[in-house]
């Protein structure tokens, strides 16, 4: 019997099970897009029948990083930019866990950029949600990597001279096997995208547009939006890297012109990192974490290697 009986348990899940009994209003401002992510995540997990005890949500730091406080599962509220390395090791140690990582645009595309690139490259089987509000929220409104060129803030009073990063293109070129963009203002699509991402066997990156009415004054900044899967104009093959890259480039450019394109941009079915690592013999078939509870397991002894030192 498994030492982790919550994993794969089949029963109806009410999305209220994901509510921990403390209210996000404690730290999130009224009208913040972060509420939308929380709601979509709860809905998606409930509809997928995920037991809260089999989900590990790892977050970074920022308003976005508080997600793990308001979502009732196993959680790890880590440090700024480092949710991904924590999350991917948890997944390696126990591949049966449903691992989700989340953080902000400063967290994920700035300080954690290196980890983002390498986690995507390795194609760990997990979902990564980046709350993209084009601003540093928690530290009170500084320019972030996704802020538009010319953006003025207290730390960039003359306006940013930098072009914003292109998260979808970054993700694709780094090697993510699922890339989508959705928005808090589009709750149904957001939930469906999260469901797809969770079901996807590989690194699924969601650039989640979240408005920050406190520091990015236009609370309706991502409205109106267009769902590219629903609109014939955006007909492209999501499994074709080149076509996906073009669509992403287009969407990223048009975002700053006020046209918000959301939907699934890329998907491929290559094996996840755990599968690759198992096939090279560098990872056990049964979860490592299980073994510590298996009384019958014969632990290998290091001194079998002693011969070479004699």
């Amino acid at each position: 019997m498994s030492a982790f009986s919550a994993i794969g348990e089949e029963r109806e899940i009410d999305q209220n099970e994901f509510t921990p009994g403390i209210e996000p209003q404690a730290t999130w401002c009224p009208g913040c897009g972060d509420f939308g992510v929380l709601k979509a995540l709860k809905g998606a997990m409930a509809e997928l029948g995920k037991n809260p005890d089999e989900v590990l949500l790892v977050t970074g730091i920022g308003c976005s990083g508080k997600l793990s406080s308001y979502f009732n599962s196993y959680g790890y509220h880590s440090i700024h930019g480092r949710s991904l390395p924590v999350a991917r090791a948890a997944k390696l140690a126990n591949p049966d866990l449903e691992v989700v990582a989340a953080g902000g645009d400063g967290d994920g595309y700035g300080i954690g950029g290196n980890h983002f690139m390498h986690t995507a490259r390795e194609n760990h089987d997990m979902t990564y949600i980046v709350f993209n509000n084009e601003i540093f929220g928690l530290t009170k409104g500084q320019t972030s990597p996704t802020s538009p060129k010319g953006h003025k803030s207290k730390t960039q009073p003359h306006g940013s001279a930098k072009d914003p990063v292109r998260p979808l293109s970054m993700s694709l070129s780094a090697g993510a096997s699922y890339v989508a963009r959705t928005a808090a203002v589009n709750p149904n699509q957001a939930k469906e995208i999260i469901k797809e991402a969770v079901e996807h066997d590989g690194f699924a990156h969601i650039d989640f547009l979240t408005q920050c009415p406190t520091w990015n004054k236009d609370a309706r900044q991502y409205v109106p939006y267009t769902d590219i899967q629903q609109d014939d104009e955006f007909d492209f093959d999501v499994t074709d890297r080149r076509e996906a890259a073009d669509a992403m480039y287009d969407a990223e450019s048009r975002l700053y012109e006020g046209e918000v394109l959301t939907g699934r941009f890329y998907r491929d079915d290559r094996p996840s990192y755990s599968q690759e690592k198992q096939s090279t013999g560098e990872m056990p078939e049964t979860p490592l974490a299980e073994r510590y509870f298996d009384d019958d397991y014969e632990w290998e002894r290091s001194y079998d290697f002693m011969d070479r030192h004699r």
Partner: protein
Amino acid sequence: MTDNELVWRIAGGSGDGIDSTSQNFAKALMRSGLSVFTHRHYPSRIRGGHTYVEVRASADKVKSRGDGYNCLLALGDSFARNPQDEAYYGNEEVKPLSENLDELREGGVIVYDEGLLDGSEVDDLDERAEENDWHVYPLDLRGMAREHGREVMRNTAGVGATAALLGMDTGPFEELMEERMGGDILEQNLDIIQMAYDQVAEMDHSHDLRVPEGEHDETQVLVSGSTAIAYGALDEGCRFIAGYPMTPWTDVFTIMSQNLPAMGGISEQVEDEIAAAALALGASHAGAKAMSGSSGGGFALMSEPLGLAEITETPVVLVESMRAGPSTGMPTKPEQADLEHVLYTSQGDSNRVVFAPGNQQEAYEQTRTAFQLAYDYQMPAIVIYDQKLSGELQNVPESFFDREPNPDLGATLTEEQVAEAEHHASGKFNRYQHDPENGVSPRSLPGQADGRFLASGNEHNPQGHIDEDPDNRIAQMNRRMRKLSSIRTELDEAEESNQTLHDPSGDAEYGILTWGSSQGTVEEAVDRLNERGHAVKSLGVSDMMPYPEADVAGFLESVDECLVVEMNATAQFRGLTQKELGRFGEKMSSLLKYNGNPFEPAEIVEGFEASINGGDPAGETTKYVPAAGD
């Protein structure tokens, strides 16, 4: 200095096979019944540049490199040469011979490769040989290697030649070659060693250096400090490592990575050290025994995840293998100057276990203890050691390592225990309870039914929710800090102390205090001081945090004066001792060394004698810092 010892030095260019040849030489001596100890000296470059390894062997236990050596095998630096036209580059070509003469003892033996080295180019070699009674044997080792095999095999010729000169049997060497190679290569090497041996055996010998005789009553293994740490981790059930290469930490990382797949474990080389430490936390959080580590600069990057482990109470073991700093410093040179870095790095009050093993056996045992404490008390434990202990090889009885694997995850609940444990009204498991006496509130693991909690780097309440309430803050801080005092009590009550007392005279009036890898050298110096009529004892301290107050205070109380020996410029360990004990400042003076080379016993003997005589104990390579109030 024992008279009956061989200290054999092999010198050449990095990449010329010096390392593997010396390892085999040491192994052969160990198999013949001797105690051995090796010391590596190498520059921070991959090929070429002068390098040497010393193998010290005696029938008695050897604990350090000793001082000086008595047999040189100078092979020549093949990378100082342009292989195309055989022209020599610059003036480095005689270095393997010229650079090593200063430390060669009187009556010593020199074998050099005439094929690559020109003895006449070394200034005053003949005069110095005469003056010091050195016995010089130029031999065309390269020629012999070419004749029976390939040029690279001149190492084998050198080994055959020294064996003949020292009256050694070539049997153990041949045996080792048979274990390692086969086919033509083996045949060629066997021919070469025989040829060199025979050629030397026919010559007239004027020296009287002979390999000592000894016997072991049980099978020995030859291990480095890094090997001992890696095996300690593996035997303790560590099955997850994440790292990023940095000298000398790479040794541990490599050994673990090579063994883990066969042991059902996972090794990850990742993008940087921040990630490496964060991965170790993630794996541990999910229920594996996990470790990471680095050397100075890489460990600096781990500072933030280290603090995260403290506040989230995630068990983890980190290894810090010191090299000379600051910054990139001297990558291949030892120093003990990261102590304060390891004790205090990361924001907030430090709440971690830090051990500094003094030799290979302690490295193995303390790594195991570090894992036990990390998992029993849910906090980071750090094993700090240095480039010296990392690469030094010493023989240890094989039976010493014969331990049971330990899959125990410490204060981690099974699912049945989670079901019975206290839960908050919200259904959340009370992960961080305020009240446990020893400070430890057991954890659940993701995937266990009804064990949900949030591990947060922000201050949090018993359910893991972020909470800045002052009463909660005090309760959580006090509980976390309480773990350190519980650990101190546990360590003090343990059968054996991690501190190593060496007191050959019984009840000595003088003390030498040291920590980490300087321990063996200090013990050897203490033996010599006692032979010279001083009543001196030493204490090699391993527990850096929590500090072993009782052990060290007892030691300091029992002596009139104490010299603190460590490899750094600012007396970090002495500072720690004064801070922790709050007294004894007037009893402790320091002997420091930070030129990139470890202490030699003679330096400590001289320093000690000068310090008690009130003279200036600082030698050319050491620094003296008097006691407070002096």
